[in-house]
């Protein structure tokens, strides 16, 4: 198979990742860290991390033609996919998720890669504290705080992921911060922008 080497790729090339292996590789390398961190902050099983990593990119491939620039940068779009993937995984349980999984990625794990995932999980302990601290917030507030304070999205991009207006996201975020000031440990508060 011929590899297309010339590419002036950018955020607008997301649609090509479903049909062009070279474009997909560029996207994968550029956004893998987003997926690594997202899952390391929320999962503690490296095998599930491996499978979910594959699932997230498979969903990105399947849904790449739905990406629109006005939905935000590809990173925000991918975080939205990761969020939905993890949500489905938790709702259906590992058995249900594996039943629809097209690529069982954990078979690709070697000892070294497993250790790296575990190290990333350990390195995200502060984010885990923050996630635990906001767990009691109402969903509408928690989702905004999670995307902004944990996943480092802007309020505008978080609003796009959630399908709400930027103004609504801003209001929810500040309401959440008002509540969290009394419940969050100091280091967790400092994570917020």
């Amino acid at each position, binding site marked *: *198979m*011929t590899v*297309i080497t010339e*590419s*002036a*790729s*950018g955020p*607008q*090339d997301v*649609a*090509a*990742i*479903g*049909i*062009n*292996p*070279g*474009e*997909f*590789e*560029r996207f*994968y*390398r*550029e*956004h*893998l*860290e*987003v997926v*690594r961190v997202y899952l390391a902050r929320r999962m503690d099983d490296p095998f599930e991390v*491996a499978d979910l*990593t*594959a699932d997230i*990119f*498979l969903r990105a*491939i399947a849904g790449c*033609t739905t990406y629109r*620039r006005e939905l935000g*940068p590809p*990173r925000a779009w991918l975080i939205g996919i990761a969020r939905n993937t993890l949500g489905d995984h938790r709702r259906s349980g590992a058995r249900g998720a594996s039943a629809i999984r*097209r*690529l069982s*990625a954990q078979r*690709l*794990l*070697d000892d*070294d*890669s*497993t250790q*790296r*995932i575990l190290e990333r999980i350990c390195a995200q302990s502060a984010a885990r504290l923050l996630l635990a601290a906001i767990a009691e917030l109402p969903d509408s507030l928690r989702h905004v705080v999670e995307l902004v304070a944990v996943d*480092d999205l*802007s309020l505008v991009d978080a609003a796009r992921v959630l399908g709400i207006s930027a103004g609504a996201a801003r209001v929810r975020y500040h309401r959440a911060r008002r509540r969290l000031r009394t419940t969050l440990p100091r280091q967790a508060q400092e994570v917020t922008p």
Partner: protein
Amino acid sequence: MNPTPPSELDGFETSLLTELKSHVAKSAATNAANPRSAAVDVPGPTRPRRWFVGIAASVAAAMVAAILLVHALWPTPAFAVTGRNSGDITVRVVRLEGAEKLERALDERGVPADITYLPVGKRCAPDRYAAVSVSGLMISISYTEFEITIPPGTVGTHDTFVMSAAVAPIDNGMKVSVDFNIAHGPVRPCRIIDAP
């Protein structure tokens, strides 16, 4: 926010990338077998160029059609051919001119070719030739050009590389339609019909 620098991959991530790229290639082949699903809706010409690749399916792909919007400004020259039939041959088209010259350029590289550039809104009737089952025949399209890659040995004895293309102006650029394949045996002249 600045883009994340490309990641260094560990063994798992490298293996996963290989499998996912294979998955993409298979999806592309499926799309290539279905011209409608191969259509790409590209935003307006003020955005950077983007690529579309279709890979002719190994058996089912009788014809590959790729459609997208391209920038109205065509640079010169009209086309370029590189490689020979013992290796990859790349046909790069930036302007639908000189079909006969392109045929000669391909013939000089051992690839008999039938090239047709069509009027706006037209296409060749799909009964011109018997298609050869091939794999690896690819097209990439940007705002300003398209490029077809013919793998080595794809065009055998009594085979012909057949390509027809049309350009139509639209609100914010141009729409290009490209049909291409490998024919075995005679290729009848293009009978022009209305494009769907």
